[in-house]
């Protein structure tokens, strides 16, 4: 994968897909018939960002398992990079979700299951970095971080399930744009944005991984000259 596509090409590809997706969303997909109208267009970015955040945490989960099996620092680097990007995308999910909520229901925040899940996901993965910051020894830090990344990722669907199906009040406010009732034109626009966002994630992971490797090399060099 490393040499197949160059890093700048990945960014360009992601950009093309994202722009095309956006154009299609406004020009091709139908305007929402209900009260939301144009404000519903944010969905074409909101949902792909959410999907990408989960992909990032999923990759971190796999990297964590691989780290525990091999103790190879490269998996730890991948884990850090993915969690950081996942956190960034989660913050964007929250932001776009709140903007949408404001437009659709006139309120910035609603304890809606998906948004609530992402709020908790943000807390979870911020805790991942807090955990990393309080362990000095590198192997131990990587090991603990991996264990936590595994537990955290398992907890995400459980949290979603709990916020979606179990609240005491029982008045689930479900956003009904996703799922079965999506017309074809909408789906195409949505799908292209999703590809673009995933490509962006891959491009960012690669770039960040390069940065992390360089950081490690610098630290090694500093260490070898006794700095």
């Amino acid at each position, binding site marked *: 994968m490393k040499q197949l596509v160059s890093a700048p090409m990945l960014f360009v590809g992601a950009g093309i897909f994202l722009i095309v997706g956006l154009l299609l969303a406004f020009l091709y997909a139908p305007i929402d018939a209900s009260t939301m109208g144009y404000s519903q267009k944010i969905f074409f970015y909101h949902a792909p960002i959410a999907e990408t955040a989960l992909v990032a945490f999923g990759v971190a989960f796999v990297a964590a398992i691989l780290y525990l099996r091999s103790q190879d620092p490269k998996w730890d680097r991948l884990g850090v990079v993915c969690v950081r990007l996942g956190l960034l995308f989660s913050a964007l999910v929250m932001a776009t979700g709140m903007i949408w909520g404001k437009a659709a229901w006139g309120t910035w925040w609603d304890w809606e299951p998906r948004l609530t899940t992402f709020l908790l996901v943000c807390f979870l993965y911020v805790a991942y970095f807090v955990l990393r910051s309080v362990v000095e*020894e*590198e*192997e131990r830090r990587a090991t603990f971080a991996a264990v936590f990344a595994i537990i955290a990722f398992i907890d995400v669907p459980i949290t979603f399930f709990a916020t979606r199906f179990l609240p005491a009040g029982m008045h689930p406010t479900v956003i009904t744009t996703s799922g079965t009732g999506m017309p074809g034109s909408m789906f195409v626009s949505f799908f292209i944005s999703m590809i673009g966002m995933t490509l962006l994630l891959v491009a960012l992971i690669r770039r960040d991984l390069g940065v992390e490797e360089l950081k490690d090399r610098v*630290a*090694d060099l500093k*260490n070898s000259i006794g700095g």
Partner: protein
Amino acid sequence: MSDPADRRDGATSLEIEVAGLRKTFGRREVLKGLSFSLERGGFLSIFGPNGAGKTTTLRVLATLLTAGAGTVRVAGHDVRDDPMPVRRTIGLISHNPMLYLDLTAHENLRFYADMYGVDDREARITELLERLELSHRRHDVVRTYSKGMRQRLAIARAILHRPRVLLLDEPHSGLDPRAVDILDGLLAEIRDEHTFVMVTHNIAKGLDWGTDLMIIEAGRIVYEHAAGVDHASFSAVYREHVHDGSVL
């Protein structure tokens, strides 16, 4: 003494075999390829300045740390792939007593006896407490013990399960002269029953006990010798290899 199943090492009389042992903490390589071995019944004294990697070596032998590279075998078992038999074979005495301060001597020993699956638990505990002159305090919580008494109890803890190999990490440090005498008396008593590896700053003690001597400096073995070196010439060797001059 020991479990008959553990006596099947007829092929070799080497109790400890270390080959190419490396260990890094983060970017710092603490052990840079150690190789040594120790015969059954031997007593290896390891010297070296602070931070040379002595304690790290001992902790790898004790399965508390995993080796970065190389093979380490204790009593014929690989410490990484097969740690359980190694753990049954070894006892560790360090300057940390590893005792629960809010439990009595008897409760501490009972706990460890259960953990090691000692069959004649009560008899063994009674025997050890008598041998270490702690019987009269057996039902007092360890918090009320003096440093020397704690160290004696720590020895009881370490040999409770009749280990074949005893690992000693600076056992004399922080002890008053009386406690040092007791410790030495005990070592003399159990000397024939065990193979020993002792990490120490104390050159006199290390030379007294050692059948094999070793100096580690900056993660490498810089000197190896069989026993029979007198104190003055060993000190000279030590100064020659170790330049920090902090010890001695």
